[in-house]
């Protein structure tokens, strides 16, 4: 799993937020479109693409997209 690929998959869950707005340093919970439903989408995406899922705490403990990537990487 590469960081760039994860960022792209992460950005893919958004409708109104342009992919160019999302980088490894993006504080994703500050994005207007972020919601609990999006958190579930990100978790389902992780399961579908990488075979592991996030728990509620994982997403709560992450601040940037890269944090999330690292959490996921540690589960692989």
């Amino acid at each position, binding site marked *: 799993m590469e960081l760039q690929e994860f960022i792209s998959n992460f950005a893919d869950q958004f409708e109104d937020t342009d992919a160019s707005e999302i980088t490894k340093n993006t504080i994703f919970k500050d994005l207007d479109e972020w919601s*609990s439903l999006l*958190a*579930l*989408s990100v*978790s*389902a995406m992780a399961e579908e693409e990488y075979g592991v899922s996030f*728990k*509620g705490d994982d997403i*709560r403990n992450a601040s940037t997209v890269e944090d999330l990537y690292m959490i996921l990487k540690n589960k692989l």
Partner: protein
Amino acid sequence: MYNPFSLSRKTILVTGASSGIGKATAIECSKLGASVIITGRNRERLNETFSELENEGHNQVIADLCETSSLQNLVTGIEHIDGIVHCAGITKNIPFQFATTDKLSEIINLNFFAPTELTRLLVKNKKINKGGSIVFISSVSGVLCSAPASSMYSASKGAVNGLIKGIALDLAPRGIRVNSVIPGVVETNIFEAGVISEEQLEENKRMYPLKRFGKPIEIAHSVIYLLSDASAWITGSNLLIDGGLTLQ
């Protein structure tokens, strides 16, 4: 003592009795005088429930209701019963775009096909006594409303809603009643493994006019009403127990 909700001289089968609503239902049924047959997949946890049953004459059967042989085995071991409570079930919070047929099958298998087939086998083999009562633990989700990322769960409970009405008609000539309870969110460990955070749960609680989730024992008591002769003229209905959630 006068008690129209008594279950004495009744034998009640409770599925999903290892935890949550099933566990509470089994224990409360035993306290109201029923002989209880409990089933679950986890031997250790099922045994825990078994040890908490009051009075004598109970049984426990380890069974995976999604396996045909396991189901057959359970049905063969049952002589006659007066009630079934279908508590075994799962929930998955998955946004619709990720709701693949495989994931949907897993939920529908346990929430819909398993209780349907168990009921059918018990009916076909004439194991349910006249005056019997079948209760499905359904949900407000899928019958009156849904929730984000709950389409698959709602679909399974919506299917149960249709099923109980049809079975209620088919079994009425045998004097067997079929109903469901449709709770709002109940505090069970069905959430423990989930992706939903504590904050999210607190926020969800505020949606309830009574400002909290339900307790397993409260669902158990509504089930007991439907099992008892106090509800002898009720069939094909959904008993709403939701802290006022669907009022607004």
